C-alpha cells in the first residue's frame, strides 16, 4: 500500500470567460427572436416564451391549464395528429407555466424544422380548447394533485408561498380540489387571447440553426398581430402572512419537511449577486455550512439546501430539508444558529476561496453548450437584463469581502422576518 504518488497538482484559477449577447432579429410583426448559434450536433432548441404565467391569472389553475391545453387540438390538427407528427419526427417538447412566464420549448433535429415550426405555430396561436379534452385533463390533474398532496415537501412548499406572498396573489395562492371544477373553454380562450399574443412573445433559438429559420418563423409567427388591445389591471396584492409559523399535520409521516425563508430582492437589485454568494456559503452547494453541520456532522438528513430565487415582482430566500420527526427541532435550531453565525462572524478566507472557485466553475458549466447558453440568457433577459449581468456576477464573485457578506446576511436573513413552515 505504501506507494509514492506524484505531488499534488497545481490548480489554475478558473476563468468562465464572457458570453456574448445573442443576435436579436425582429419578425415582421415585431416579435423578437434571439439566436444562439452553438454546438456540434445538428439539433435545435426553440423556446416560445410568453408573458403568460401564473402572475397573469385571475383564477387558480388558469395559466397552467391554458398552457397544458395548447397541444389538445388546433384549427388544423387534432391532438392525436399533433402528437403523432411530433413523435414521428423524434421531437421532444416541454409545455411550461411558471409563476411569471409560460410557453413551449421544443427540441428537434435541425432538418425537420419546416414541419416543427408549422406545428409550433398551430400549438401556440391556434389552439381550440375542446371541452371533452379539458374535462379529461382536469380529472387527471386532480388525481396528480391528490397524490402530490401526500408528499410532505409539497405541502410545506405550498404553505411557504402562501405564507410569504399571501393567498391573494397568484405567487402565493393555494390550490384546493374545487379549483379543478372551475375551468371551462371560454375562460381558457379569453386567457389565451389576452396572453398568447405576438406582443407578449419572445423566441429564443439555440443549437445548429437552420439557414431558413427566420423565413419560416416569419411565415408562422411574423404575420399575425393581436386582434384586440387588452387593458391590464392588476387586482393582485403581494402580502406576507402575519403569522410566520405554520405546522401542517400529516398523519403517518416518518419525516418532517421544513421550509424557512422570506420574500427578498430579485436579479434587478444591485445586492443580488452578493446575495447569491451568501446563499452558496449557507446552503447552495454540497460543502455548504448547512450540509456540513446538519448532514455531514450530525447525520440528521439526506440533504439540506438553500436557494435565492428571482421573480418579476419579488424574489425569495428559502432553506429546505426533510428530517426525522424526532430531530425536527434540533435541525431548525441549527439552521438559525448557522444564519446567526453568518451575521456575526466574518467568513474565513479559505472558505471564501472555495466558494469563489466553485461558483466560477459553475459558471463555466452554465455557459457550456447551446442549451445551457439559452437558459442562462433567458434567465437574465426575462428581468430586462442582458448577459452583462453575468459579468457583474463574476466580478462580484472575485471581489466580495467577508464584511459585505456579514452585512448581507443581516439584511436579507433577518431572523425576525423569516417564515417557518413544517409539514409532517
Amino acid at each position: 500500500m505504501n506507494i509514492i504518488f506524484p505531488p499534488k497538482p497545481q490548480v489554475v484559477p478558473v476563468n468562465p470567460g464572457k458570453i456574448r449577447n445573442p443576435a436579436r432579429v425582429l419578425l415582421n410583426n415585431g416579435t423578437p427572436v434571439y439566436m444562439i448559434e452553438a454546438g456540434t450536433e445538428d439539433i435545435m432548441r426553440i423556446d416560445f416564451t410568453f408573458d403568460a404565467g401564473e402572475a397573469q391569472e385571475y383564477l387558480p389553475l388558469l395559466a397552467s391549464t391554458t398552457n397544458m391545453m395548447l397541444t389538445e387540438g388546433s384549427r388544423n390538427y387534432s391532438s392525436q395528429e399533433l402528437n403523432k407528427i411530433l413523435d414521428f419526427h423524434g421531437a421532444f417538447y416541454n409545455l411550461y407555466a411558471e409563476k411569471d412566464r409560460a410557453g413551449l420549448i421544443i427540441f428537434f433535429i435541425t432538418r425537420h424544422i419546416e414541419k416543427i415550426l408549422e406545428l409550433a405555430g398551430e400549438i401556440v396561436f391556434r389552439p381550440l380548447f375542446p371541452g371533452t379534452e379539458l374535462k379529461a385533463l382536469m380529472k387527471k390533474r386532480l388525481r396528480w394533485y391528490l397524490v402530490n398532496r401526500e408528499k410532505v415537501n409539497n405541502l410545506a412548499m405550498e404553505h411557504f408561498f402562501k405564507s410569504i406572498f399571501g393567498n391573494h396573489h397568484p405567487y402565493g395562492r393555494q390550490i384546493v380540489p374545487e379549483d379543478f371544477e372551475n375551468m371551462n373553454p371560454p375562460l381558457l380562450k379569453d386567457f389565451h387571447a389576452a396572453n398568447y399574443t405576438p406582443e407578449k412573445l419572445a423566441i429564443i433559438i439555440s443549437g445548429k440553426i437552420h439557414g431558413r429559420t427566420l423565413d419560416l418563423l416569419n411565415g408562422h409567427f411574423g404575420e399575425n398581430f393581436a386582434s384586440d388591445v387588452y387593458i391590464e389591471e392588476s387586482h393582485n396584492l403581494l402580502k406576507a402572512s402575519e403569522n410566520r409559523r405554520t405546522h401542517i399535520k400529516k398523519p403517518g409521516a416518518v419525516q418532517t419537511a421544513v421550509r424557512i425563508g422570506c420574500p427578498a430582492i430579485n436579479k434587478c437589485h444591485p445586492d443580488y449577486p452578493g446575495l447569491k454568494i451568501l446563499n452558496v456559503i449557507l446552503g447552495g452547494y454540497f460543502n455548504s455550512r448547512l450540509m456540513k453541520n446538519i448532514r455531514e456532522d450530525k447525520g440528521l438528513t439526506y440533504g439540506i439546501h438553500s436557494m435565492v430565487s428571482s421573480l418579476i415582482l419579488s424574489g425569495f430566500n428559502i432553506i429546505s430539508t426533510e428530517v426525522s420527526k424526532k430531530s425536527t427541532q434540533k435541525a431548525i435550531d441549527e439552521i438559525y444558529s448557522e444564519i446567526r453565525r453568518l451575521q456575526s462572524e466574518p467568513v474565513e478566507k479559505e472558505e471564501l476561496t472555495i466558494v469563489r472557485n466553485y461558483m466560477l466553475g459553475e459558471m463555466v458549466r452554465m455557459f457550456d453548450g447551446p442549451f445551457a447558453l439559452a437558459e442562462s440568457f433567458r434567465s437574465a433577459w426575462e428581468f430586462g437584463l442582458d448577459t452583462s449581468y453575468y459579468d457583474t456576477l463574476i466580478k462580484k464573485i472575485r471581489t466580495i469581502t467577508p464584511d459585505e457578506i456579514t452585512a448581507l446576511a443581516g439584511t436579507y436573513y433577518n431572523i425576525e422576518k423569516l417564515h417557518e413552515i413544517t409539514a409532517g
Partner: protein
Amino acid sequence: MIDYSRYTLDNGLKVLVHEDRSTPLVAMNILYYVGSKDEGPGSTGLAHLFEHLMFGGTARIPDFDRHLLLAGGENNAFTNTDITDYYITLPSENIETAFWLESDRMNLLDFSQRNLDIQKNVVIEEFYQRYLNQPYGDAMLLLRPLVYKIHPYRWPAIGMDISHIRNADQEKVMGFFFSHYAPNNSILTLTGNITCGRGISLAEKWFGKIEKRAVRPKTVPSEPVQTEARMLTVEREVPADALYMAWHTGPRTSDDFYTLDLLTDILSGGESGRLHTKLVRQKKLFSEINAYVTSDVDPGLIILHGKLMKDVDIRHAEESVNKVIDTLKRSCPPPLEMEKVRNRYESSNVFANTNILNKAMNLAFYELIGNPDLINDEVDIYKKIDSMMVTEAARKYLDPSNCSILYYKSARRK
C-alpha cells in the same frame, strides 16, 4: 460519431478517452463493477452505503470535496444493482486534480468509525425520504421480491431493510473495499477537452502504481425460469390505486434488448404511445401509465406501471392493459409506427450525446458490457428491427406465466 481511444494499464484498469473540443470542460467517470447484486441477503444496502463513505476522505487527503471545489469541479455518484459510478466535471486546465483525488481514494480509503456512523444515519434518512415517506415509494421494494426469488436483484440498491444499514460495521465495510475497489475491477473514462494521448498518459501517471487486487469473483445465482403468474395485493394510505406489472427478459447484451426497447416505446413512448392513447385518453382508466425495459447486466425486466382514475376497478384496468398487449401479439405494428419509434430512438440518442458527462457514463457502461463500439453502433442495430421482430418478442416475453402483478390499492374510501 464518437471517436475514442482505449487502453489497459498493467494493473488492469481500463481507460477510454473521447476528445470533444467544443467544451472547456472535461468529464471523468469511474465505474466500479460492484453493486447491490454483490451483497449477501443479510447485509443489503452495503454497496450504496459504501458510495457515501467514499466521500469521507483518506489519510493523505482528508477533504476530497474541498480540493475539487478549489479546482472549479463538481462531482457526484450513484449506485445501482450492478455498478457504483463516480463522476466529476471540471475545467480542463485542472483535470490533474481529478486524477489526484480519484487515484488516492482508489488506493486506500480511511474508515473512521465516526464517518461510518454519520453516513449510516444519512442513508437511513435517504431511505425514509425516497422510499418510505413517499406515496408509492415502497412499490419497487414490494415488486422486486415478487419477481426475483433467488437473484440478488430481489432487493434495490438502497437495501432490503433499514436494519441492514444500521447493522453495517467497520469490518464489513473494509472487507467490501478490498474485495471490490480495485483497478482491475474498474473503468476510467474521460470525455471533453482532453487529447487521447494526454488522457492515457495521465491515467498511467496517477493510477499506474496502484496494485492489482484479488477481486471477489461474482457468484450471483441465476434466477430460475418463472412458470406461472404471480400476484400480490397491498393496501396503503394513497389517494389512488396503482397497477405494477413485470416480465422477465434477457440481459442488456442480448439482441432482444433493442427489440424490447422499441416494443415498450410503441406501448408508452411519448404522447402517442398506445397505452397512453387507449387507456389514458380514450378509455380514461389511468391518469398516467408507463412501460420500459431495464438496462441490467444480468437478465432484467419489462416494467409497466400506471395510476388509476377514480372508481376504476383494478382488475378491469389490468384486463385493458392486457388487451393492448394482445393486439401487439396478434398483429405487427404498421410501418409508420415502426419508423416513429426508430426516429424517436435516433433523436434521443443524438440529444444524449451532446453532453460530455453522458458520453463518459455511456462509454464506461458499454465497456462494462463488453463492447464500447456500441456507443456508435446501436443506431444501426435499432434500424434493423422490423415489426415482425417486435411481435415475436411480445409473444415470447409478455406471457401471463412470465408476469408478476402488484395491486397497490388505496386503503382509503374514495
